[in-house]
């Protein structure tokens, strides 16, 4: 019997499969995914900005990682910004930079990340501009790998290979996989000039382009996403580097995870609306036709998949629970006489086939993502891989659902 829930699910399956197939075609069209390992021979002045808001635990290791970069020290301008921290961030930075007089320090009341970066943009002297979130750490060779991407004059931004830093629990290990898959897709998106977001940690920009575009949007929840969309709108090239490694802390508990995702998705939603004129606009190429619509569509898919899964999966059980009232809630009779007569033929084969296809494609993509990121699939264990494949999409769907009341009631987010 065809129900509305079934129709919605089939549309979701089709769209999801279409996107995956589309990007796999891009993968098979391009042989060299990783690209040559180039190291810079020229050393232009680079400004590295570390904006921090209550980051007392991670700010010093972040600064240390920048100081240990394999790059001429006189070509590196480091600016730390304390954006109205209420913890010991300011005190710790001041103490630390006593030994590094060249590090610049700005402290002001809480004005937001976008405004803080704009402040830095005005005073920094570098030809290139990098923001490193204070919860992230950079590999010593990262900058050497990133700079050669700008030999192509049309490149305005290069993204590092951002990995989750030292995942400890299952949630962080799942995110480790997710980050690698994202990098793989971003690399493919880069081939079609479709990268939708340059992450906060260590994405490098031509400063002249940032200035030309008027800097960051100071009232934006996800200023990095907004900046990327601005670059796309103005047809600048963004590339994903597969050698420059950056490590970022990921949420260690489910509350922090949902908080982070809500912020990202809310930013995605509002920026998608802000740049709606790019959507389905052939002037913006594949980015307008497939990538930007996906930014909005992913939310609709996430919400629909949760509701339809809950509806189709739980409806019979809810009905049975309600029916218990007719037998004085005597569920022990059912429990003591439980019997299952499930055979292979009882499977819903159409759904099963699509599920198997999606599963194989997901395993293939996961394998490619690990391989191209120079990681071994089972290095972090096996359970998180299974959880990532089977349940992670549900968690993302839940994030979208949790976001709904905030969007409806215009709740304000802080970084």
């Amino acid at each position: 019997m065809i129900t509305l829930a079934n129709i919605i699910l089939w549309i979701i399956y089709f769209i999801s499969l279409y996107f995956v197939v589309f990007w796999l075609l891009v993968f098979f069209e391009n042989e060299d995914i990783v690209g040559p390992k180039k190291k810079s021979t020229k050393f232009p002045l680079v400004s590295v900005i570390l904006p921090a808001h209550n980051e007392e635990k991670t700010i010093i290791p972040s600064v240390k990682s920048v100081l240990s970069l394999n790059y001429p020290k006189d070509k590196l301008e480091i600016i730390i910004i304390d954006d109205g921290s209420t913890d010991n961030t300011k005190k710790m930075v001041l103490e630390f930079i006593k030994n590094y007089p060249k590090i610049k320090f700005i402290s002001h009341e809480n004005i937001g990340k976008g405004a803080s970066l704009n402040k830095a943009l005005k005073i920094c002297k570098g030809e290139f501009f990098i923001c490193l979130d204070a919860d992230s750490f950079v590999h010593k060779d990262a900058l050497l790998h990133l700079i050669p991407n700008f030999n192509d004059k049309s490149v305005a931004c290069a993204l590092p290979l951002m990995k989750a830093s030292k995942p400890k629990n299952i949630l962080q290990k799942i995110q480790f996989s997710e980050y690698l898959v994202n990098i793989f897709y971003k690399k493919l998106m880069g081939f079609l000039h479709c990268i939708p977001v340059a992450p906060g940690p260590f994405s490098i920009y031509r400063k002249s382009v940032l200035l030309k575009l008027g800097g960051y949007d100071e009232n934006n929840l996800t200023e990095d996403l907004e900046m990327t969309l601005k670059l796309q709108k103005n047809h600048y090239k963004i590339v994903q580097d597969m050698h420059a490694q950056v490590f970022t802390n990921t949420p260690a508990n489910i509350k922090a995870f949902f908080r982070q995702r809500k912020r990202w998705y809310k930013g995605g939603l509002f920026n998608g609306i802000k740049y709606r004129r790019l959507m389905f606009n052939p002037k913006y190429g594949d980015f307008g036709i497939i990538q930007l619509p996906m930014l909005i569509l992913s939310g609709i898919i996430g919400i629909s998949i949760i509701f339809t899964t809950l509806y189709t999966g739980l409806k019979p059980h809810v009905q049975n629970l309600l029916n218990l009232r007719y037998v004085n809630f005597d569920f022990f009779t059912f429990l003591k006489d439980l019997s299952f007569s499930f055979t292979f033929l009882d499977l819903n084969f159409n759904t099963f086939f699509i599920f198997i296809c999606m599963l194989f494609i997901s395993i293939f993509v996961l394998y490619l993502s690990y391989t191209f990121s120079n990681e071994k699939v089972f290095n972090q264990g096996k359970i998180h891989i299974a959880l990532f494949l089977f349940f992670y999409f549900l968690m993302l769907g839940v994030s979208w659902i949790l976001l709904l009341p905030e969007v409806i009631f215009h709740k304000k987010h802080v970084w």
Partner: protein
Amino acid sequence: MRTIKKRRYVFALLITSFIFVFGLMFGIVMETQRVDFIQQKSEEQRLDYRGLQFQYQFIDLLGEENNCPFMEKALNKNLESLEETRIKLTNYNEDAKLSKDEFEYLYRDYVLSQLGYWLLSKKSRDLCDTEVATILYFFSNEKICPECSEQAFILTYLKKRFGDKLLNFALNAELETEKSLDLLKHTYSINTFPTLIIEGKKFEGLTSKDNILLEICKFYNSSVLDCKNIN
């Protein structure tokens, strides 16, 4: 100016569509497997029925009443297997795309088996003096009969409570092609759903557990725990 390679979009659409069509074909192939499976089950059940029928005739003719408990067990087991097949048949029929006719044919076969067992159970009670109550349960689809799922739940519960002492015969009143079902519907004037026929007595609409107990407990001579407060 950015360019779009339309061919890539079309190719992705073709591959995705191909996977979907292949999935649909796979579903159809498996549908024929389901038909074969139910057919095989029906054959087995027909044999079981004939075997049981012979045993009753044997007792009837030779007066071998000491074999009664063994046959009651067999009757109950066959009915459980029949009910299992009914549930699978109903689910397969709901999913069916091309084999609706085959499934309906098999459903007729199932209904006839049910009715055969119903008659056999009546004979069993006469012959072996068994403590068994029988319920004919006429149901229809969710649209016509929104309370049928509740009624089925209550009957399943009572079956779990009473085991061999209660025999439920679920009959889908929608099956218009089976004339013997029409005969029963006509005999008991079945117009509304759910309707229960508990040992000849008709109950229309959703019948509660307590009302069913009131009726079936009349057929148990020895003490049955669930009937203690009723009798």
